[in-house]
C-alpha cells in the first residue's frame, strides 16, 4: 500500500484549509473578509522570511521593498497612468520586476551573512523608502497614490468577493510552490550552506549563487503579494517601504514559528488577528502588545512559535500530524 508521506499530509491539510477559506466569506461581514484576505496575502511574503531563516539562518528585513515594488507597479499601471488593471498582466509583471530587483539587491545583500545581512536589509529598505518619498512628481511623495482601479481577470471586472477568491487562489499556488521548493534538492543544499559554509563550498556548492537564488525566491513572493495588496487597500504610500513594515513579516514569522511548514500560515493570521484585536479594543497599546507577544513566544517556545505551543499536546509520537491540526484550528477561529 502506498504510504502517506509527511508531504502528502501537508498537502491534504492545505487543501482543507483552502476549502475553509473558500467558505469564510459566506459567513462573515465585508470587513472581516477583508481581514482574512489581508492575512492570505501576507502568507507568501512571510514564507519569504521563513525560507531564508529556516534554510539559510538569515533574517530578512527587506521584504517591504518587494511588497512596495509590487504595490507601486499596480498603483502606476492601474491607478496613476491607467494602463491596465488586468491581473494576468500585472501579476507576471510584478513577479518579473521583483525578481530583477531581488537579483540585483541580492548581489550586495547576500555578500554578508548573519547580523550584517539583517542590517543591510534594513539599510537598503531605507534607501528605497527615501527615494520613493522624495520623488514626489512620480510617486506622489507622502500622499501616495490612491484611486486604483478595481482589478480585472480575463478582462472581466472583479467585485470584492471575486477578488477575494483570486487572492485565495494565488496564495494557494504560492504556498504549494513553497512546499515543492522546501522539499527540493535546492533546499537541502541551502541547509548545508547554513550548516557549514566552508564545507559546502568544498563539495562544490555554488554558495553565493544559491544564497542569491533564495533571496530572489523570497523577493518574488513579496512582489506578487504587493501587486494584490495595492488592489486590496486601493491605496499605496511610501510607508509600504518603511523597514518597520518589513519587520512585521519577520514578527509574523516568529509568531508562527520557523520550524514547521505551517508556521508562516499561522504567523500571518496570528499577526493580522492580533493587530485587528488590539486596534479595536486597545488602540494605543499596539507596540506594547506585539512586543510582549513576541517576547513571550521567543522566551517560551523559541523557534517553534505558536505552531509549537499548540503542537505540544499532540506531539507525543505524532509530532508532525499535530502540526497540521494546529493550523486547522487557527484558521477556523
Amino acid at each position, binding site marked *: 500500500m502506498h504510504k502517506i508521506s509527511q508531504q502528502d499530509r501537508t498537502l491534504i491539510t492545505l487543501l482543507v484549509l483552502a476549502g475553509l477559506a473558500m467558505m469564510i466569506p459566506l459567513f462573515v461581514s465585508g470587513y472581516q473578509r477583508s481581514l482574512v484576505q489581508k492575512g492570505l496575502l501576507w502568507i507568501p511574503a512571510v514564507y519569504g522570511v521563513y525560507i531564508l531563516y529556516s534554510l539559510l539562518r538569515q533574517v530578512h528585513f527587506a521584504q517591504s521593498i518587494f511588497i512596495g515594488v509590487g504595490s507601486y507597479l499596480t498603483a502606476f499601471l492601474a491607478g496613476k497612468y491607467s494602463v491596465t488593471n488586468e491581473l494576468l498582466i500585472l501579476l507576471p509583471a510584478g513577479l518579473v520586476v521583483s525578481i530583477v530587483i531581488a537579483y540585483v539587491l541580492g548581489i550586495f545583500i547576500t555578500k554578508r551573512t548573519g547580523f550584517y545581512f539583517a542590517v543591510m536589509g534594513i539599510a537598503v529598505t531605507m534607501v528605497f523608502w527615501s527615494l520613493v518619498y522624495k520623488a514626489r512628481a512620480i510617486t506622489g511623495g507622502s500622499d501616495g497614490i490612491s484611486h486604483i482601479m478595481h482589478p480585472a481577470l480575463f478582462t472581466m471586472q472583479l467585485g470584492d468577493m471575486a477578488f477575494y477568491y483570486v487572492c485565495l487562489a494565488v496564495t494557494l499556488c504560492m504556498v504549494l510552490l513553497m512546499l515543492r521548493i522546501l522539499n527540493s534538492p*535546492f533546499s537541502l543544499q541551502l541547509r548545508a550552506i547554513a550548516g*557549514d559554509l566552508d564545507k559546502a563550498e*568544498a563539495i562544490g556548492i555554488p554558495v553565493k549563487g544559491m544564497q542569491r537564488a533564495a533571496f530572489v525566491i523570497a523577493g518574488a513572493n513579496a512582489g506578487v503579494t504587493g501587486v494584490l495588496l495595492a488592489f486590496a487597500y486601493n491605496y499605496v504610500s511610501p510607508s509600504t517601504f518603511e523597514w518597520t513594515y518589513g519587520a512585521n513579516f519577520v514578527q509574523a514569522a516568529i509568531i508562527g514559528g520557523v520550524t514547521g511548514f505551517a508556521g508562516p500560515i499561522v504567523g500571518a493570521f496570528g499577526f493580522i488577528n492580533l493587530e485587528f484585536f488590539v486596534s479595536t479594543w486597545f488602540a494605543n497599546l499596539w507596540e506594547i502588545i506585539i512586543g510582549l507577544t513576541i517576547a513571550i513566544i521567543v522566551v517560551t517556545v523559541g523557534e517553534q512559535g505558536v505552531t509549537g505551543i499548540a503542537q505540544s499536546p499532540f506531539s507525543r509520537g505524532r509530532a508532525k500530524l499535530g502540526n497540521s491540526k494546529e493550523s486547522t484550528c487557527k484558521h477556523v477561529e
Partner: protein
Amino acid sequence: MLNDDSKPPLITATNLRKYYGEVKSVNDISLEIAQGQVITLVGANGAGKTTLLNLLTGLIIPDRGEIRLLGEKITGVAPDKRARRGIVKTFQLEHVFDEMSVFDNIRTACLSAAGKHYSFFKDIENEKEINERTEGLLELFDLAGVKDTFVRNLGHGYKKVIDIAMCFAMKPKILLVDEPTSGVGEEEKFRIMNLLMNQIEANNLAAIIVEHDLHLVKELSKETIVMCDGEFIARGTPEQVFCLEKVVEILVGKGF
C-alpha cells in the same frame, strides 16, 4: 608512480608564489602530479603546506604562477568549481553538517556532484539515482547503520569518516588531505587512514597528504616532499628524505 609522457599530468603548478607581506608562504613552487600519484607533504608549522593546498583548491589566489588541471588553466577558477572538476580537499578538523542526518550529508554531496544545485521543483525523494548512489556510499564507508542519525549526535571518528565520504561523493580526481588524523584517538587514526588509503588506491586517485606523524608518512606513500619557508627542500622516498641532514634539522623535536 607511472608517469606517462603522452598524457598531460593531472595537475601542473608552475612557479606558484604567495607572499604575505614579508612572509614568503609559497615561494616559486612548481609541482606535477599524475593520476594515481600519492605524495606526502611534511614540514614544520608555518612552512606553507596549508597555503600550498589552498592555492590548489582556489581558496587563495597566487600572486604569481599558474595552475593547470589536465592541461587547462584554472588559476582563477573559484573553489566550488574546482571541487566539481575534481580537486577536492578534506579539512584538518572535520567539517560536516551537524543538523542533518548522515544520509542527508552524503546526499548533499551527491546532489552537488551531479550539478543539481538549482533544482527547485523536483521532490528530493524522487531523485532515484542520487538516493541510490548515497546508499552505495553509506555501505562503502560503513555508515549504513547510522544513516538516519543526526550527525551532531555522533563522535569525532564518525564525523571524520562522513567528511571523507562526502569528498568521495564528489568523484574526485585528486584529493588534498590536510592532516587527516588530527584530533582523533590513536585507535581510530589507523582505521580512518586505512579507509582513506584504500579508497584512494581503489579509485586510482592522486593525492597530497599533509601529515605530521612521520611513522605514518613512511607507510602512506612512496614519495615525500619536505617544505620549509615556502620552498621544497627535499623530495624522494620517505627513507631517503628522512636521512638528509637538513631535513632532520627542520623536523627535530617532531617525533623523529
